[in-house]
């Protein structure tokens, strides 16, 4: 069933295949090559950025782990004779690494972890997975295989003879592992100091052996118990350190292992960042920054986030989806050549071909822009390329400025909304971002209610928020915010003034209260109380309240100014990727539904009038497999083939019309029979039915439902 095809060596294609593919469909005038180069460089930038983020996020955790390994090891080195230490020396140092659900991203974490350890602590690391460790024997085999291989990797040049000892020949037992360890450490000791200086400065004389259990929960209890008990017997000869990767909670160690076993471990807990926080950081660094010219539209971002939240919790997949967006955008949008840094984009505008200019004119957002201009300008824009290029440069700059401002104002708004009760606009900044991209956010109910809630904030909250906003605006790259910062600072000073005034006011109220206490007459008391109440009700807003209103109104004006949805902006098509359906189709496909539609409603695919039917049913002229499928829906668990065949032939005969009877009916019958056989075996291939031995000439249905 396998066939290899090799081309003749002459015809081998040159490198840069991807670029060729990219060009193949797009005609030359649309700068395909330049687009491809831009796309690649953008993706490489983003990729390195995400890797950097990942590294930074893991750094803390890894530092802690390395510290733990150092400590556990150095304790062992000091040969104290104290009783407690002797007790302790029976215990295996263990790090419990709580990672949270999701296995796929953890592979990457473990990979970088082992790299870090290899560089800092020890060359002897074994990564174990529950899948391959069904029994203690398999586990030992895996362990020894990895340890000895890693030794070979470290200095394979020097000991050629060692390589030849395959792991099979060594008996898999703890003693052989110990002897191996002794020989290895001795070898390093006896090594010429000049050669091994560098490595021995990194590792100690007897580096620990680190065993990582990737998915601790999936290991069988028996295997874990046995392994731990055996290891604790040999801990003196073999400095082992265990690392458990835990998906649920650290309690699982105690529920998996009985006390007698878990007491052999000296566990320290490490918590990794949850994948949600990881995603937030990624979104923060990738999307909410003006660094990258490429932007995601609201729907697209929504789809990506939903795949993350509802399906896999995998940041890697999120990034993959992001990559797909970039590729798709640069591939399908000829004007994406302008989707680069502003300086380059301006240069590129000047060298646009006439076709590309026409492409710009065809953009809906540009058309709307033209309609708003005076008539002379309109004519110039639509006819003269030079005028168009000039305008495009200006518009691109506008778009750039819009982005810079947008991000700062968005963060500022998030400061306000993220502390409101019930979070009407969402807890995370990504939700706010989506809402703003989707529509004019100030027209939504949620925005209205959050403003109302903001009008009830306390003074201290308000002051801290304002301070945060000032920080955001000061650090932002937007140039228009000098005034805003001033205004906000003014608010802050006003609040401080209020504080001073408040002292005086308090004096006044205290005096009135004193007055109250003076009068003991019941009638007068009632009267004054009523008066007080009256005055309070009709009292004008306090200064603080006025100021609070002012602040909220100011924020509101900022939002209305700067958080205009992107698709209201001219030329947004150049940098925004908006076709969410493509993304969903390729990342979150539903094969079963496609089959269902094809079988139930073939007109969706085959645009033939004969297949068109009202009310969702199928006509009798549908393809054979559709008819057979439709008929089988009427059956229960078992289907009688004879009945099925008869029903099928009735339908087909009727569809072919009365003239079919005139032909030699035997042949027609045979052909129908053959068609039936084909359709049935196709259904079997698709998994709707399977042969059954329960009754002669019956097949079993494998799906429920009949629609």
């Amino acid at each position, binding site marked *: *069933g*396998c066939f*290899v*095809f*090799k081309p003749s060596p002459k*015809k*081998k294609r040159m490198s840069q295949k991807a670029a060729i*593919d*990219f060009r193949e469909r797009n005609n030359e005038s649309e700068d395909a090559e330049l687009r491809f180069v831009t796309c690649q460089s953008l993706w490489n930038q983003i990729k390195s950025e995400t890797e950097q983020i990942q590294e930074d996020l893991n750094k803390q955790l890894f530092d802690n782990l390395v510290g733990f390994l150092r400590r556990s090891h150095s304790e062992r080195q000091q040969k104290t004779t104290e009783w407690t230490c002797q007790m302790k020396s029976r215990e295996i140092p263990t790090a419990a690494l709580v990672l949270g659900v999701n*296995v*796929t991203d953890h592979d990457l974490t473990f990979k970088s972890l082992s790299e870090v350890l290899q560089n800092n602590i020890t060359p002897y690391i074994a990564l174990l997975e529950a899948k391959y460790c069904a029994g203690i024997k398999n586990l030992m085999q895996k362990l020894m295989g990895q340890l000895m291989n890693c030794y070979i990797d470290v200095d394979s040049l020097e000991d050629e003879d060692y390589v030849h000892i395959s792991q099979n020949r060594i008996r898999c037992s703890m003693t052989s592992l110990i002897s191996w360890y002794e020989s290895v450490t001795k070898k390093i000791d006896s090594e010429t100091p000049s050669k091994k200086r560098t490595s021995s400065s990194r590792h100690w004389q007897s580096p620990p052996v680190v065993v990582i259990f990737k998915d601790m929960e999936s290991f069988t209890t028996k295997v874990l118990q046995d392994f731990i008990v055996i290891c604790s017997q040999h801990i003196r000869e073999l400095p082992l350190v265990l690392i458990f990767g835990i998906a649920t909670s650290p309690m699982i160690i105690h529920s998996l292992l009985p006390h007698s076993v878990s007491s052999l471990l000296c566990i320290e807990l490490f918590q990794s960042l949850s994948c949600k926080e990881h995603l937030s950081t990624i979104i923060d660094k990738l999307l909410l920054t003006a660094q990258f010219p490429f932007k995601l539209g609201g*729907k697209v971002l929504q789809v990506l986030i*939903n795949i993350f939240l*509802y399906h896999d919790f*995998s940041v890697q*997949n999120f990034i993959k989806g992001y990559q*797909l967006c970039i590729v798709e955008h640069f*591939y399908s949008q000829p004007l994406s050549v302008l989707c680069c840094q502003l300086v380059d984009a301006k240069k590129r505008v000047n060298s646009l071909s006439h076709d590309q200019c026409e492409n710009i004119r065809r953009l809906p957002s540009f058309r709307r822009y033209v309609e708003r201009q005076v008539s002379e300008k309109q004519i110039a824009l639509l006819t003269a390329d030079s005028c168009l290029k000039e305008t495009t440069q200006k518009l691109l700059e506008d778009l750039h400025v819009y982005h810079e401002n947008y991000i700062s104002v968005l963060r500022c708004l998030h400061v306000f909304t993220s502390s409101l009760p019930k979070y009407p606009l969402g807890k995370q900044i990504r939700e706010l971002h989506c809402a703003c991209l989707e529509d004019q956010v100030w027209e939504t109910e949620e925005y209205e209610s959050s403003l109302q809630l903001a009008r009830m904030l306390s003074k201290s909250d308000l002051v801290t928020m304002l301070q945060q906003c000032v920080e955001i605006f000061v650090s932002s790259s937007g140039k228009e915010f000098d005034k805003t910062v001033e205004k906000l600072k003014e608010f802050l000073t006003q609040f401080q003034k209020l504080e001073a005034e408040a002292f005086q006011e308090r004096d006044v109220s205290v005096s009135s209260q004193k007055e109250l206490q003076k009068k003991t007459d019941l009638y007068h008391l009632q009267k004054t109380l009523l008066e007080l109440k009256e005055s309070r009700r009709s009292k004008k807003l306090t200064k603080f309240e006025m100021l609070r209103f002012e602040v909220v109104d100011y924020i509101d004006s900022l939002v209305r100014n700067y958080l205009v949805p992107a698709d209201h902006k001219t030329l947004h098509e150049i940098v925004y990727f908006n076709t969410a*359906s*493509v993304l*969903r189709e390729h990342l*979150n*496909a539903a*094969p*079963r*539904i*496609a*089959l*269902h539609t094809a079988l139930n409603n*073939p007109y*969706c695919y*085959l645009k*033939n009038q004969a297949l068109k039917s009202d*009310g969702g*049913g199928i006509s009798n002229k549908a*393809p054979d497999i559709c008819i057979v499928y439709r*008929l*089988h829906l009427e059956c*229960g668990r*078992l*289907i*009688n*083939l*004879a*009945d099925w*065949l*008869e029903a099928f032939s*009735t*339908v087909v005969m*009727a569809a072919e019309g009365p003239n079919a009877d005139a032909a030699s009916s035997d042949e027609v019958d045979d*052909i129908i029979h*053959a068609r039936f*056989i*084909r359709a*049935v075996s*196709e259904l*079997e*291939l698709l998994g709707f039915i399977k042969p059954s031995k329960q*009754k002669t000439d019956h097949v079993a249905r494998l799906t429920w*439902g009949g629609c």
Partner: protein
Amino acid sequence: GVKVRKDKTQLTVSVKGFVKKLENISDDETQEILEEKNYVAALGICAQDPMGNGSSVSGGEVYSFQTPKRSSKMSELASELAQTPGQSVAPDQSESLEKTDKTPQSSKSVLMRCLFLLLIHVFSLLLQSKKKELVSTTPYRLRKRLAVPDPCLESESEYSASCSEEEDEEDQKAVSIALSGQKTPGKTKAASTPPPRNTLAKKNEERMNNLVEEYFEAHSSSKVLTSDRTLQKLRKRRLNQQTLHDLLKKAPLAYAAEIKELNQQHESLFSKWMLQLHLGFNIVLYGLGSKHDLLEKFRTSVLQDSVHLVVNGYFPSITVRSILNSITEEVLDHIGTFRSPLDQLGFIIKRFKEDSSLELYVLIHNLDSQMLRGERSQQILAQLSSLPSIYLIASIDHINAPLMWDQAKLSLYNWLWYETTTFSPYVEETSYENSLLVQQSGSLALSSLTHVLRSLTHNARGIFKLLAHYQLENKDNPSYPGLSFQDFYQQCREAFLVNSDLTLRAQLTEFRDHKLIRTKRGADGVEYLLIPVDDNTLTDFLEKEDED
């Protein structure tokens, strides 16, 4: 009197409470539906689709509960489809038919049976007079009866008189529906018009009850509610692979133009696929219809100048081993064997990592086939596909194919999904399948039989032939257990083929090793011998032996 009234009020109160509860339930349900909608909307499924394909179908339609089915429903549907050319089957119509099905008829059944037999008689008379005017409104069953030739009719009527009660009843129903034309439609109408309902709660309750009842009805009995007819009774000869193929060639492919258009749509994606393959994605194709030709076209038009491997997953003897072997032996030109597939995989990964100029395109037709769908093979293929210089493009067909992959494998595969519904027949893919409708030629079994026997002694051949003859003599006996060892020994002795019990046993061991015979212990502990080859092949074999 007061007390009674009080009770009554209590009762009404409790009823009210119950209704209220139901309303609450329905509210909850609507809430749930709303939530589901939110989720769907959140995923963006409601967004319009450029291809216009069926992603608008909700999951509830595709995955629903099992409901009880009547065996006559299929033929009813068939007749409806036949009667109304070009029109769809209105769902409410079938529902009303179902309802008439359910009306109890046991009281009338005796009368109906008489009527039925009478009718059969009338119809056979009609047939004999060769009056073949078909009225288009006669239901399918009757029409069928009219269409079949006379001897068949005889057996058919005989059969239906003798077969199970249930079958009878159905036929009667069919007749009753057809003949009492004025009566039944009225009844169906009455049954089909839903009685006026006051509250939503009530409706909901009814629906719930129906659902529950239907569920338990469907699961209550293991009895199979299908008719007992077999293909043999239809006098259809079993077609073999060749004749099937020839016959299908004669039948024109329906909607060829539209299918071609679909294919052209897919072919326009080729360069995009190549781009995405090079960027580190792998591509999986799904959708109804064979994707073999599409992939083949992809191969010939785009991959001509590069090294590529085509794997026919539908091939019944394909294994991961053979895929790995063809990579190591033919692509990497490595001579030598490996201890395990994992070793081999490790070797391949190492080679591809070392040599960055190595590139390989892998096309797998039917990645979800029987042989490749196992966990281990998928794991290996996934690891293979995760290599940056191996580009995988595969097709899947089975409805449950995506269940093969867990998150770990999915992230290794790094799929981009493409819907390529082609509607073209699965010619290659089904030709290997041991379809129950296709007669196995048995040529393979025959040749192996002759080959093995040719290497045996004359006496051994005689022993086997003896057993074969005996089996053929008993071929009409459905409960034939096989030849008992003692009888067999006796017969062999009489034919001077063996001289002792032991020689026969030694001989039988030889047969058993070549899978020529099977032994079975009967209820009485006696050993029975059988040749596990079908009768036709055995006859052929004996004829051939006699010729030699």
